[in-house]
């Protein structure tokens, strides 16, 4: 039975964890994800979950403990942000290469230098090639729904990859929204039991994990990971279809908003989609054929599907909430522009880096971008393809 409640994004994730009742949670507090282990520790203290809670002394250790727990045959979860995710960097590769479907709630926050606690995507984008599935949310509802889908995706025998469920720090993690929750019985039935084929604590068959690979095996192991990531796309869609049956909410690899006849479009990730949709609405009222693609799944990257969705667009702006210091645009821009390459006739593409360290983005900003795209669509000058948006002066 679905029911409504008013929860912050962090509460929604903690509540999803409580409904799932994982075997082990290991976490270390860091703003803005701190509330997740706090809520969860209270569930443990109140006997509302059956989880072993490991209050580790760092994020490096939280990921290490999750790896140990998941390898032992348990379902392990953690949460982090920013520098915490950066400290996990080494262990993120160990988790994915050991094929351990750990679930991590990432509350996106800018990386330090200078220290900043507000939202951008530099943390999870910095770790995008670590072999984790990455799913992003626009709002609290999506954060909750995505978290419930993580384990059925990652634990599938042909996937066996860890999953990162991302949401925007403070913007969704701390804002209250009315969201629809599933009853715990339905969640448990949907997520199911974790029954890996091999694990450390299996009596019948001792297992060794974490070998030294010589050159004769390392590459084969990496290709197996890569093949699983390819298959994950199919599995993500299967799980989304199953989830729709119990929730009535439909999910894909990305959301297409007003794209059927769009001539100009934006591609972006996360909560800014809500702001961009407001801009699209206003432009549509003025007769402008504006559309929007909101990326839900960044890893595996849905390249063919995005190319298909953009093939009739004349000009597209790809919006990164992270700098990559490549001197030619952010990571999303690089991926999307590359995806367009195989089209017979390609839209013109420009990239923007915006919203760093929590810098506000408004419908007016997006209208300005659409205005530029309309000029380009009419044959105007493309101009610089890599610029920033929302900065002072």
């Amino acid at each position, binding site marked *: 039975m679905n029911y409504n409640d008013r929860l912050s994004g962090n509460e929604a994730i903690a509540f999803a964890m409580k409904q799932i009742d994982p*075997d*082990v949670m*290991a976490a270390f507090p860091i703003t803005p994800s701190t509330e997740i282990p706090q809520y969860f520790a209270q569930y443990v203290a109140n006997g509302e979950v*059956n*989880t*072993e809670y*490991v*209050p*580790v*002394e*760092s994020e*490096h*250790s*939280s990921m*290490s*403990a*999750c*790896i*140990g*727990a*998941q*390898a*032992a*045959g*348990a379902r*392990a979860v953690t949460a982090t942000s920013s520098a915490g995710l950066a400290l996990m960097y*080494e*262990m993120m590769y*160990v988790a994915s290469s*050991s094929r351990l479907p750990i679930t991590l709630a990432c509350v996106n926050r800018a990386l330090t230098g200078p220290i900043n606690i507000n939202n951008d995507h530099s943390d999870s984008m910095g770790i995008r090639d670590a072999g984790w599935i990455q799913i992003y949310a626009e709002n609290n509802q999506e954060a909750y729904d995505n978290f419930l889908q993580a384990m059925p995706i990652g634990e599938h025998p042909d996937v066996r990859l860890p999953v990162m469920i991302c949401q925007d720090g403070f913007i969704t993690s701390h804002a209250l929204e009315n969201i629809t929750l599933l009853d715990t019985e339905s969640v448990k039935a949907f997520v199911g039991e974790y029954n890996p084929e091999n694990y*450390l*604590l*299996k*009596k019948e068959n*001792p*297992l*060794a*994990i*974490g*070998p*030294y*690979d*010589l050159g004769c*095996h390392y590459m084969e192991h990496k290709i197996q990971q890569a093949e699983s990531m390819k298959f994950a796309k199919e599995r993500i869609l299967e799980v989304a279809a199953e989830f729709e049956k119990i929730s009535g909410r439909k999910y894909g690899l990305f959301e297409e908003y007003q794209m059927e006849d769009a001539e100009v479009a934006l591609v972006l990730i996360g909560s800014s989609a809500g702001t961009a949709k407001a801009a699209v609405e206003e432009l549509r009222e003025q007769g402008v054929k504006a559309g929007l693609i909101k990326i839900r799944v960044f890893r595996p990257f849905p390249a063919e599907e995005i190319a298909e969705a953009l093939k009739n667009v004349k000009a597209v702006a790809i919006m990164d909430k992270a700098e990559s210091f490549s001197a030619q645009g952010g990571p999303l821009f690089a991926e999307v522009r590359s995806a367009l390459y195989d089209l017979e006739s390609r839209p013109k593409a420009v990239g923007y880096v915006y919203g760093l360290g929590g810098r506000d983005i408004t419908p007016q900003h997006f209208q300005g971008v659409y205005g530029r795209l309309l000029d380009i669509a009419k044959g105007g000058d493309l101009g610089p393809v890599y610029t920033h948006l929302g900065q002072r002066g």
Partner: protein
Amino acid sequence: MELERTYHFKKTLEKKERFAPGHRLCAGCGAGIAVRGVLRALNEEDRAVIGNATGCLEVSSFLYPYTAYEDSYIHTAFESAGASLSGVEAAYNALKRKGKVKDTVKFITFGGDGGTYDIGFQSLSGAMERGHDLTYVCYDNEAYMNTGIQRSSSTPRFASATTSPAGSVVPGKKQNKKNLTDIIAAHNVPYVAQTTFIGNFRDLYTKARKAIYTPGATFLNVMAPCPRGWEYPAEMLPEICRLAVETCVWPLFEVENGVWRLSYEPKKKLPVEEYLRMQGRFRHMFKPGNEWMIEAAQKSVDENWEKLLAKCLG
């Protein structure tokens, strides 16, 4: 559980090996001896999950697709052995509560001094403080041997290592060895001990049994010489261990529920010179004009020994 009071050397050696031959450690290496000796202390009917920090032991005992361990084994990274085994132990508690695991499983993790005194110190401290039911065993060979004998905080003063070489100006490592056993004892865990390979292995065996079967987090520090880093002929390993103990360079002791106990007191404490002389890493200390180094080394050993005696007798 009640541990046996008598030690039967032959009966102990007849127990089934849990660290199989065919690993690729060097001849005369202490790491493999430490692992065999510690795992021999397990009850034969008990299962174990063995953890390991990155290091010589790891790259020599689990080269894909061959493992030297009869038990389940996990290696994750250099600095994460304490945390990873914490996670395994947490999973065991959860799965046992849910009835998914029924029998007894013990948790033992091995790290060299690099993975224990230095890069893995934080995760070790965390695991000890949280009190997971596991045993952390440091095989202490007093330098980063796997990467080629670089100094660690466990390397003794004056030892020549590749990042603290003895030269015409600098006399090897400038700092004294960190006293990790004391630091772990200060975590107030129920059992901490220091041992090495002596005689019939009674000391190692009984301490390993206590460590493994004392509920809670326990720590064993095992001096495990390295023939390449210490520069000795492989067959001299037992003699080096004996001299480490007889000179009080590496005293044998245990701390059980806060009570310090000396395991062995040499009848006649030998001069540290006898221990140093056997190892190439201290060669420069015996050059004319460097007598002060041997004096300083002796002074440091004497001070530490007096401090230990005070704790054990006080």
